[in-house]
């Protein structure tokens, strides 16, 4: 099978799977009357809908190429950073630092990825921006809460720009015997990540006992079972990757664990800012770019670097 055909088959298969899941979810909603059941079916359906965005991303990467994908993720970074800045208190004297963050750091980071200049985009934000932004802010001469203010902007940039940008960077990885199939590896990453979330919700509804503090819609048992199922799925899909089956198991495990940590950390951040909220009947409101990207922010750089470290020639 040529590369084109493989892509087409994978895309068609995934669409079919999701269409079935969507139809099944809709059918469940129609025949269910109990409020508690409806709540978790709603949770599941939200995630199935979100999984469609993976098909869309993949279709874009496949038809328009990596450039279009980078533009999409740059926009996602912009909205995530805007949301992060909106939720943290900002002073007038932060203006210059924010201008640099929005109009310089985001485009430069993605341009560096487009130029495939790994040695630079791996250190641009953690080293150069980290050193330059405090200077920009110090020139503003406002020293009140100085360290806290600069720490927040840097943290926001790391999560919203640096971490997010490593997802489209997966496409650019040049791996021995796997040339030109980066989009497939990105798809593998996104499918495993999304599956662990979806399976955790389903398993929590079926066998859940101890609700998680960070998310009452998931239970400890459900997260473990769902994570295990996602690792199995990741193993089964090893032909999409340059990994042997047991390597795929470990990689999927890394994605699932890092994704869970990302959700945990960003939930804590958003909760401390009053931005992640549950209605009085315990339904999490899905709102905001940060919330949708939380698992990805941690999993993308981890998956990227593990792959690069162990599989690049």
């Amino acid at each position, binding site marked *: 099978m040529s590369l084109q055909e493989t892509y087409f088959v994978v895309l068609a298969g995934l669409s079919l799977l999701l269409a079935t899941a969507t139809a099944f979810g809709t059918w469940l909603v129609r025949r269910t009357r109990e409020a508690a059941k409806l709540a978790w079916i709603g949770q599941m359906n939200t995630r199935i809908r979100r999984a469609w965005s993976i098909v869309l991303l993949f279709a874009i990467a496949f038809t328009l190429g990596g450039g279009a994908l980078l533009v999409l993720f740059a926009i996602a970074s*912009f*909205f995530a950073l*805007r*949301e992060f*800045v*909106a*939720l943290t*208190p*900002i*002073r*007038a004297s932060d*203006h210059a630092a*924010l*201008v640099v963050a*929005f*109009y310089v750091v985001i485009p430069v980071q993605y341009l560096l990825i487009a130029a495939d200049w790994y040695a630079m985009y791996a250190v641009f934000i953690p080293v150069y921006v980290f050193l330059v932004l405090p200077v920009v802010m110090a020139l503003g001469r406002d020293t009140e*809460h100085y360290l*806290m203010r600069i720490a927040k902007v840097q943290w926001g940039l790391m999560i919203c720009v640096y971490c997010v940008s490593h997802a489209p960077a997966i496409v650019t990885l040049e791996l021995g015997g796997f040339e030109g199939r980066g989009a497939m590896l990105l798809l593998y990453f996104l499918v495993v990540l999304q599956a662990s979330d979806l399976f955790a919700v389903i398993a929590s509804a079926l066998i859940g006992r101890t609700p998680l503090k960070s998310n009452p819609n998931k239970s400890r048992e459900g997260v473990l079972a769902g994570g295990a199922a996602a690792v199995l799925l990741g193993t089964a899909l090893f032909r999409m990757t340059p990994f042997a089956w047991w390597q795929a198991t470990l990689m999927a495990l890394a994605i699932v664990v890092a994704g869970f940590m990302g959700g945990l950390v960003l939930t804590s951040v958003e909760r401390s*800012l*009053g*931005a992640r*909220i*549950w*209605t*009085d009947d315990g339904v999490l*409101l899905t*709102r*905001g770019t940060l919330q949708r990207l939380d698992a990805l922010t941690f999993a993308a750089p981890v998956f990227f670097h593990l792959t690069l470290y162990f599989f690049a020639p």
Partner: protein
Amino acid sequence: MNLPIKFLPPLVWLVRVLVGAYPRWIGSVPSANQRIYFANHSSHMDTLVLWAALPDALRANTRPVAARDYWGAGGIRQRIAQQELNVVMIDRTREDPDADPLEPLQEALDLGFSLILFPEGTRQPQPLPGPFKSGLYRLAKAFPQVELIPVYLENLHRSMPKGALLPVPIICTVSFGAALRLAPGEEKEAFLERARDAVAALAEMEAVVA
């Protein structure tokens, strides 16, 4: 003008993309309980921003109160007001001195709707709210079961230096505070002052939290 509004992206989506309208639930959580959200008013966008910050499920049952002389003046504004926001029109000009301007609000509350209200009556140039008009007090008295939620609308642009070379993206945040109730025997002035302070306190929190 007959614009095909139905073919445009949903209004709420547009507002969220352009100005953010990020909600922060500080003292209360989203709930289907009947509520009056009352907020500071300093921009024409305020009604849209508060409305867009509400969760989808609640928005359908929440109606903004809007001045007839601004939102009812025809054109696209009136179309948005009627077709998207489902506003309750209030008569600010009081052409008929005998009519009670609060009557349409009471009707909406009787029907079980929640309301979005700007008790200052008109836009204020300063970030902190000005004195409140008495309508909020009269509604609180007539509908004691309705939760009164103070809301502070913050536009990041206002706190940025004027005339800067590059503006940062426009970002509106919407802080929801703890519900207020009219205390037994509470005087009108005292209650309105307390309500205003509740909104002002959210503004302080926005500025101080570090």
